[in-house]
């Protein structure tokens, strides 16, 4: 055959995720799932949120309540003074409760059990997260793979990536070897902002830890503010996970899942670059 043949793109497996990243990723997924379910159980014990040191019972900024409606009840969620009917999901689902049975661990009401699950997995989450962060920092994963370069932060570049993402057009070939700026930003914000914020706001709700580190109360503006931020940060993490899972599916679920298990990720390389 002569040199004029069309060279077909070739699939090659590249090393994508290090061993620590893969192990800590799955432990983190387990711990966060259990923390969410048990956290919603704990939230249900008093499904209202406030700002400041103490609760202002007459004016929570967020509340889930059950209101009599004829022979039945309606679930009502109030956010910053605006009321939403959320019957069946929030406020009332067969019985008056904040989040429904399918979203809590255990499904029935048990604050004591919810706390046990929560604190057990909180320890798993903290130890696992510390191992990840230390390894990522010392091993260069953070600097090499996640830290945003100046060029990536240029508005034009970011806009391009946002448009590509919105159209579900993902990097191909050599480009797919690296994380793009949106991925880096999302992962960094989780690893360095929202997940650590969960730990810090969680500890700020501990009266024992308050005595030892009162500056945390000042940092977050009080225990009830910390509880609100804990909830908001959890919601941000849930939103991240939903987008993350959608992106995994949209950009090739098997390739992505394999790369997070075996570490190998397939990219297509033009025949020319061998």
């Amino acid at each position, binding site marked *: 055959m002569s040199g004029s043949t069309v060279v077909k793109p070739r699939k090659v497996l590249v090393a994508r995720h290090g061993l620590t990243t893969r192990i800590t990723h799955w432990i983190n997924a387990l711990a966060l799932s259990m923390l969410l379910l048990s956290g919603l159980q704990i939230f249900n014990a008093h499904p209202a949120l406030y700002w400041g*040191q103490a609760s202002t019972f007459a004016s929570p900024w967020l509340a889930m309540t059950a209101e009599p409606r004829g022979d039945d009840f309606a679930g009502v969620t109030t956010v910053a003074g605006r009321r939403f009917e959320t019957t069946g999901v929030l406020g009332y689902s067969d019985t008056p409760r904040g989040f429904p049975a399918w979203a809590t661990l255990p*499904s029935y009401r048990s*604050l004591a059990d919810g706390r*046990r699950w929560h604190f057990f997995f909180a320890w798993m989450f903290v130890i696992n997260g510390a191992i990840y962060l230390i390894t990522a920092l010392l091993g260069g994963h953070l600097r090499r793979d996640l830290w945003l370069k100046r060029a990536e932060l240029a508005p034009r570049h970011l806009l391009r990536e946002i448009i590509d993402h919105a159209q579900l057009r993902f990097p191909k070939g050599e480009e797919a070897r690296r994380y793009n700026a949106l991925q880096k930003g999302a992962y960094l914000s989780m690893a360095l902002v929202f997940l650590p914020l969960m730990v810090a706001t969680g500890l700020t709700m501990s009266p024992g*830890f308050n*005595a*030892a580190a009162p500056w945390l109360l000042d940092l977050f503006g009080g225990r009830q503010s910390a509880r609100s931020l804990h909830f908001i940060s959890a919601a941000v993490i849930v939103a991240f996970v939903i987008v993350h899972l959608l992106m995994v599916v949209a950009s090739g679920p098997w390739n992505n899942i394999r790369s997070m298990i075996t570490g190998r990720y397939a990219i297509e390389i033009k025949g020319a670059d061998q």
Partner: protein
Amino acid sequence: MSADRRRWLKGAGASLAGLWLAACDRLNETPAVRATLARAERLTFKVQRATTDRMALAREYPAEAISADFRANGSISPGDADYRALLANDFRDWRLVVDGLVSTPLSLSMAELRAQPSRSQITRHDCVEGWSSIGKWTGARLGPLLDRAGLSEQARYIVFHCYDTLDPAAGANGRYYESLDLIDAYHPQTILAYAMNDAALPVKHGAPARLRVERQLGYKQAKYLMRIEAVADLAHISGGNGGFWEDRGYEWYAGI
């Protein structure tokens, strides 16, 4: 999508959700799982004790921070006959007994309790449910009181027996009680409060006296105090876990 298929999918979804819930609840009720989860409590307790200052004070707030809507929880008006009799007489016959592993058992009237070394503090009360209220408490410091009674060498815990029956179905084990180790018992902010916001302690908040242990959650703040007992271990008292809520699955260490 046909209505049939939609119904089928909905049914399948509901069954999957049902399976998931059943699996989670099953795990929650498995003794080995519960024992494993409970290990985290001891870890939390040990790490907090090891890494933080044991004498660190809970934050105290300015008078403006006092909650006008301080919530009362648990028993708010005990129906126990002995308590009603004391209340009817404005607690003139009330005595606080201090006994157990002590050299000099005490039986103090309210006047005697008020004559003890005291402390006032404006602190935050954190309910295990998640809410907080701020109030001012005045009461006798527990440490000097225990010294007056003379704790024996064997004493490891201080148990607070209360007048209120919170779980009538549990018979003799339905009365409220709580316990502290000696570190929290001798903490400077640990007081037997007889006044709240500069007035006599209201019934719903535990009249005539309640415990305040400011670095722990609300269920530790035993109300309607009857008797304080120094013990070597907690196993022989009520359900054996050191408190009414502890016997019902809550952590003994309520600092988190």
